[in-house]
């Protein structure tokens, strides 16, 4: 089960609203490589993981991603507060505004709403963990690209933190993949799918 802790993972205080920047950062809320997809990907993949260490890692990284989702939502919320209609129009935030006012909606910066087709649960530990490595890289580069468009130190600092977490998660998923490989046939790790084929009973 999950219990909510009433605090952010990292402090956020954006002094200056900037709806244009919000319309870019929203991609890490509901875009193809954003935090919503990350949390659902890992928290769903864990059910078919046959080994304890991998179950733990997916649970704990998936949970951390939920606090990142809250952080990105907080950035969008604080960047769009107290806006006038003319500020919204001038900043190019009007298309988002028409559909969502200043609510926080899971969508990509390009306007595509969040879709489960941007994530996968294959039920195969090697394929899933390799997807997770790629997912961390895709989120990392999205944060790189946000940093190219962001001059506000209050926002930059938060994006820098989130970006660094992607690198740490990449390392941990890599170690998890190594651990899975150690459990498999050493000459051919693709001999069978340990989440489905019951050729060998192995425990962590």
């Amino acid at each position: 089960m999950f219990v909510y802790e009433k605090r952010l993972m990292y402090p956020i205080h954006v002094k200056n609203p900037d709806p244009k920047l919000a319309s870019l950062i929203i991609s890490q809320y509901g875009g193809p490589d954003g935090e919503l997809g990350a949390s659902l990907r890992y928290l769903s993949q864990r059910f078919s993981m046959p080994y304890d260490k991998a179950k733990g890692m997916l649970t704990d990284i998936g949970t951390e991603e939920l606090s990142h989702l809250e952080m990105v939502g907080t950035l969008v919320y604080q960047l769009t507060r107290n806006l006038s209609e003319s500020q919204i129009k001038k900043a190019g935030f009007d298309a988002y505004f028409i559909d969502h006012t200043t609510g926080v909606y899971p969508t990509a910066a390009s306007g595509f709403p969040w879709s489960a087709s941007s994530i996968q649960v294959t039920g195969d530990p090697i394929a899933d963990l390799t997807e997770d490595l790629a997912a961390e890289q895709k989120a990392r580069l999205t944060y790189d690209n946000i940093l190219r468009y962001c001059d506000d130190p209050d926002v930059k600092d938060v994006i820098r933190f989130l970006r660094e977490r992607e690198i740490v998660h990449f390392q941990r998923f890599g170690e998890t993949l190594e651990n899975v490989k150690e459990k498999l046939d050493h000459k051919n790790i693709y001999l069978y799918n340990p989440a489905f084929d019951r050729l060998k009973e192995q425990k962590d």
Partner: protein
Amino acid sequence: MFYEKETQLTEAPEWNQCPSANGTLPSCAPLAQSYVPYQEEEARKYDQREALAQGTLFPGLNLPFYKSIEGDPVPVTPLTELQALGFVLTELGLYLDSHPKDQEAFELFRQYAALEKQGKAEYEKKYGSLTQCNAAEHKQYEWVCGPWPWEIGGK
């Protein structure tokens, strides 16, 4: 607190000389699979405030983008003190998930868990409960009282 603050390493040649930024790989590795080296045990660590500011406890994993090399110091407030302790637990927890036999890391995890528990109790007394369940510790039900975390001046 337990480890001295470490100077951030930002030049590639220095990373390559730094053992805590490197791990080990098999010298004769099977084809057609991907490899990420395990992080070595006893890797160098930041203290909790620096860890929160950098987004990692480990200098060896701190690999910034050129548009934002330096992590700014996080202002010291009761909330950020708690966030720093909580962050070390999150980070060490992930490390321990793949290195459960590292006793030194586990001991550090235990020490930080004790500090975080104590810090949380003190924080909740002054600023309100952090979980709905802990609202029971107060005379009145204050759980719904703002500011909520995403609001300006929030927790």
